[in-house]
């Protein structure tokens, strides 16, 4: 018997690591990887709640989150390729044309 709170604590810890990566990392690919880490943390909370409430909906939400994450990864990486081809750098801090 593992308490539900342990799963939620693990989920919260992974989500906070993802937030930290999203905010602190410099290169655009690692920022994108951090977003995937946050999605994984939320998936764990979905499955844990679904198991605690004895419902299949938690698993199905995770399935749809994975589908959307796959589409998002394909489009997002294509955008990264286009941006890097135009700008020649992976550094997110150098992408500030709107500010200048």
């Amino acid at each position, binding site marked *: *018997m593992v308490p539900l*709170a342990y799963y939620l604590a693990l989920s919260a810890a992974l989500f906070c690591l993802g937030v930290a990566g999203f905010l602190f990392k410099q290169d655009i690919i690692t920022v994108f990887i951090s977003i995937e880490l946050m999605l994984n943390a939320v*998936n764990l909370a979905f499955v844990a709640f679904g198991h605690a409430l004895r419902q299949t909906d*938690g698993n199905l939400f*995770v399935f749809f989150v994975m589908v959307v*994450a*796959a589409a998002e990864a394909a489009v997002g990486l294509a955008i990264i390729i*286009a941006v890097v081809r135009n700008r020649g750098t992976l550094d997110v801090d150098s992408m500030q044309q709107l500010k200048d």
Partner: protein
Amino acid sequence: MQLALFLVFALVAVAGGVNLLLQRHPIYSALSLVTVMGALAVEYLLLGAEFIAFIQIIVYAGAIMVLFVFVIMVLNAGEVAAPPKSRVAAFLGLPLLTALALLLLTQFTGSIGGAGLALGDPRVGPAEVGDALFHRYLLPFEVTSVLFLVGILGAVVLAARPHRPRPAAGQAPEALAENPAAAAARR
């Protein structure tokens, strides 16, 4: 036994997440994420979600991360030289992040309490997931295929090289003059 398995793989997942943050090269971050995903797949198995566990390995660790690694190789991505950060981020970033983590932890553990979870509930096996997917969630399931089609088209359009009109061999030079810069240079 379950608790020991949970703790071991939770530790692996958190260590992978921390390593993702600490590495400077994106390929190491991507491989750390694969570690996190594998550990989370074991946690899903502990929760009795076999379908999600294997989808996690096949789709996430298999397909999506291969896409990431391919893009890292295509772009020949290396370490980004870290420029000096803003002072606000340096002073406020870590305290605010710690506050967020503490808030989430206290909210979760406070509202849920110590309610235990039984392992392997037979009602949420792969058969039930498939049944719900093709009956109650049939329309969202079909909509995801449209979403994938649009995603594929968008990825191809965005990642394709910009199209340049190529002059055909043996064509009159006037035909090339639709480029305004070239026309201006000739004038």
